[in-house]
């Protein structure tokens, strides 16, 4: 209990500090200090990741001409809040402007974007344990299973099964990332002096298929190769 209270206290402190940085970022942005605003929003997001903070961070990065970090920030805003229309519009605007394509999502990934990931987790856990309890508890307490219990269990099981593709979608989507800098060389091998496969532009989406040391093997729409973690950032990271 004490631990919980201590954790809640720390979290409240973090929230207050994040809020303070957020407001400082808004002020800096308003005064045209986009660099300072980006720094403040970054600090706020580090303490308390929030959709609005990432949206503002994206705006500030965009104003600084940094397309990769801007798109990453907006993607993170959408990751936290799939219904954030402003972040979605900004992404569309940026991709239209930069002639970039959005990541290609499979159907189960699209399903996973319907509600935030935490909700899916809660829904799955709730439905799973509802089913388990309804099936196990009457036996434990030596009671007969009633009709409504069995119906509720069937409903919970259906709900649980329906949430599984969304979970898989979240898992695969968590491997999507964004190239941060323009003209980033895509390496053939995970080495410092690797041969260049091609160069990728800032904001290009890719999927990290595997990692080796500081390198990720990224698959883009038309190419695949190795990038360092400084060159490619996962959205869910």
């Amino acid at each position: 209990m004490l631990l919980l209270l201590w954790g809640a206290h720390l979290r409240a402190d973090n929230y207050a500090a994040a809020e303070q940085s957020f407001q400082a970022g808004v002020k800096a942005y308003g005064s045209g200090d986009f660099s300072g605003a980006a720094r403040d929003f970054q600090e706020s997001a580090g303490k308390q990741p929030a959709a609005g903070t990432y949206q503002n961070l994206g705006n500030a990065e965009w104003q600084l001409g940094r397309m990769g970090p801007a798109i990453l920030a907006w993607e993170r805003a959408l990751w936290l809040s799939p219904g954030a229309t402003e972040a979605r519009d900004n992404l569309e605007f940026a991709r239209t402007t930069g002639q970039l394509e959005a990541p290609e999502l499979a159907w189960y990934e699209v399903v996973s974007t319907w509600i935030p990931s935490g909700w899916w987790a809660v829904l799955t856990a709730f439905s799973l344990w509802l089913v388990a309890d309804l099936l196990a508890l009457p036996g434990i307490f030596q009671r007969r299973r009633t009709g409504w219990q069995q119906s509720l269990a069937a409903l919970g099981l259906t709900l649980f099964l329906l949430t599984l593709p969304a979970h898989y979608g979240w898992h695969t989507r968590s491997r999507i990332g964004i190239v941060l800098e323009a003209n980033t060389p895509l390496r053939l091998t995970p080495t410092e002096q690797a041969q260049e496969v091609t160069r990728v532009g800032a904001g290009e989406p890719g999927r990290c298929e595997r990692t080796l040391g500081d390198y990720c093997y990224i698959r883009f729409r038309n190419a695949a190769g190795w990038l360092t973690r400084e060159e490619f950032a996962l959205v869910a990271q």
Partner: protein
Amino acid sequence: MLKPFNHDCHRAALGWIAWLCVLGAAALRAETSAPLPAGDSPRDWYNAGTAQLHAGKLPEAEELLQNSVASQVAALQPLALYNLGCVRVAQGVDLLKKSKDATGRSDPAHVATLTQLAGEASRRIDEAMASENEQKMVAAYLLGGGVRREINAATKAVRQALESKKDILAKWQRAAADFRSAAELQAVDTNATYNAAATERAIAALIDKLNQLQQAGLKMNGAGKQLGEKMKQLRGTMPMPNMPPGVPGDDDDQELPGLQPGEQEGAGKSGEEMKISPEQAEQLLAGFKLSGEHRLPLGDDGTAKPKDRKGKDW
């Protein structure tokens, strides 16, 4: 600290590296798979590429090994990168052999001689102009022309030599990086580290030679330009009838022609800009297509008249 460059020695050393690589690859191939497997797995590509390297078919070996590296099989990548480095070193050595200048015009000693000759010719032109002796002028002009022509030829040879050496440099730089990558992926591979170091030494020596050649070439070119200026002055001094016809070196400089500062396009000789109405311009642009593909038929037979026309009867 690099040792002073002896190009032949390094070439020989690189040749040895390439040869040892071939032998090593052959031995490895003999160990791993006696008959060359037929297939398209990364392992097959690696084996086939190694066999091609052994057979001296470098482009094929490069392609196969490159495919093997690109297949991203972690176990194969360091091996394929090592052999790829060997292939590229050997390709560089081949290029080096082919780029040898048989005429010796790109030789630094020859370039230095020409630089001195250009200075001598400039001096003679100065003397001739000072003496105002027409025969001296003609002789100095002819000498200058000959030197300039030779300088132009040497400049061309130096440029070709620089270009070819840049290709070699690119190959070896890639090879060194391949060796380094192989060593990075397989830290215990001391052979790759050794080869990388040897290739980097050769690269450093080649860069030294490139710089030396470039400097000598620039110096010669500068002397040639100075000589050209002197010749131009001399030509302005000489009476037109005494100008030697077809004097060489006047218009075949190796520098590409272009607009000089202050030079402008001349105005047209005849005709003035006309003002036309927007409507006329629209009709003109829409109705008249510039086309060189539709020639008139030869002879009158092919000329079709859709309707009787008024006007002259041709």
